[in-house]
């Protein structure tokens, strides 16, 4: 089993620009220390219709006044102000950046990388790279990040489980998981409709995001 940077095609170049957007970096940094309520607020605002901050303070009165809530609200409104297509890309990039940031906090010496392929002897490489990987020491980990539960589908579940199985075939341990910026309930409902293997795939949701920093 070996890791490799994904090929930088045209789409990847455009997306790399979005991943490097200072707004993405700022928002991920704010969300890394957010409460679950603040994470829900960010999700709502980024997917909201209205961009008046007063509306959102009224909707979530228990989260205000609070400096972090205000900063999250302001950054999320900046995302919401983007056009629909860009907004969607930015949201995805924020979830990936957040997962990367939390994994880096483990401080266990492993390399946290983005957009990586995992190659196995005699197995054709997957088209889609893994969003975030944790590459040793100890068992490697590969994560696919989703904005919402709806992003969970058979393709991603098979890709993750296949990678784990191929690693096991080479006597390597690869832990695979989904990081979903949505609630566990929504993910459970989504997973009930899926028949792809998922028993060995971890699920990190908005309620458990902070645990990414301490998992081992």
């Amino acid at each position: 089993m070996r890791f490799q940077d994904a090929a930088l095609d045209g789409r990847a170049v455009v997306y790399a620009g979005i991943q490097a957007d200072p707004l993405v970096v700022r928002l991920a940094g704010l969300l890394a220390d957010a409460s679950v309520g603040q994470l829900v607020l960010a999700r709502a605002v980024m997917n909201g219709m209205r961009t008046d901050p007063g509306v959102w303070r009224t909707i979530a009165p228990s989260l205000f006044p609070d400096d972090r809530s205000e900063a999250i609200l302001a950054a999320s409104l900046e995302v919401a102000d983007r056009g629909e297509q860009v907004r969607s890309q930015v949201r995805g990039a924020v979830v990936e950046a957040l997962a990367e940031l939390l994994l880096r906090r483990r401080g266990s010496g492993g390399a946290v990388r983005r957009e990586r392929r995992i190659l196995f002897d005699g197995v054709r490489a997957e088209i889609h790279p893994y969003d975030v990987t944790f590459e040793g020491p100890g068992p490697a980990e590969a994560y696919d990040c989703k904005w919402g539960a709806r992003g969970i589908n058979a393709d991603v579940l098979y890709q993750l489980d296949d990678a784990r199985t191929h690693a096991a075939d080479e006597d390597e341990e690869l832990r695979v998981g989904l990081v979903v910026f949505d609630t566990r309930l929504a993910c459970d409902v989504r997973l009930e409709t899926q028949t792809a293997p998922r028993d060995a795939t971890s699920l990190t949701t908005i309620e458990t995001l902070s645990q990414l920093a301490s998992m081992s």
Partner: protein
Amino acid sequence: MTSIGELIDRAQTGLEDLGLRAEDVADEWTFATELVAAQGRRFGAIAIQRGTEDAPEPVARAVDELLGEIGLIDDPHRAIDWLSTFPDLVAIALGEPIGSGSS
């Protein structure tokens, strides 16, 4: 004074309307309808426990503003996203746990 039960009734109506908009995405019909059902059970559980309580004025305003927000959504894809977010904002307003409930 509005009761928690009345707020939950309004939230349930808003949830069902959102679900109807989400159903326009044919491929996601099962997910949308099952998520509406799961969130509805969650609302029902809150109503049973706290339905007779008076809702503080900021809580009632929060739910009203939230219903105004989801009322503006006409894109079915966005409606699907809100089927999970909306009930959690109701939960935040009511001081209930986020993401709880059995699917």
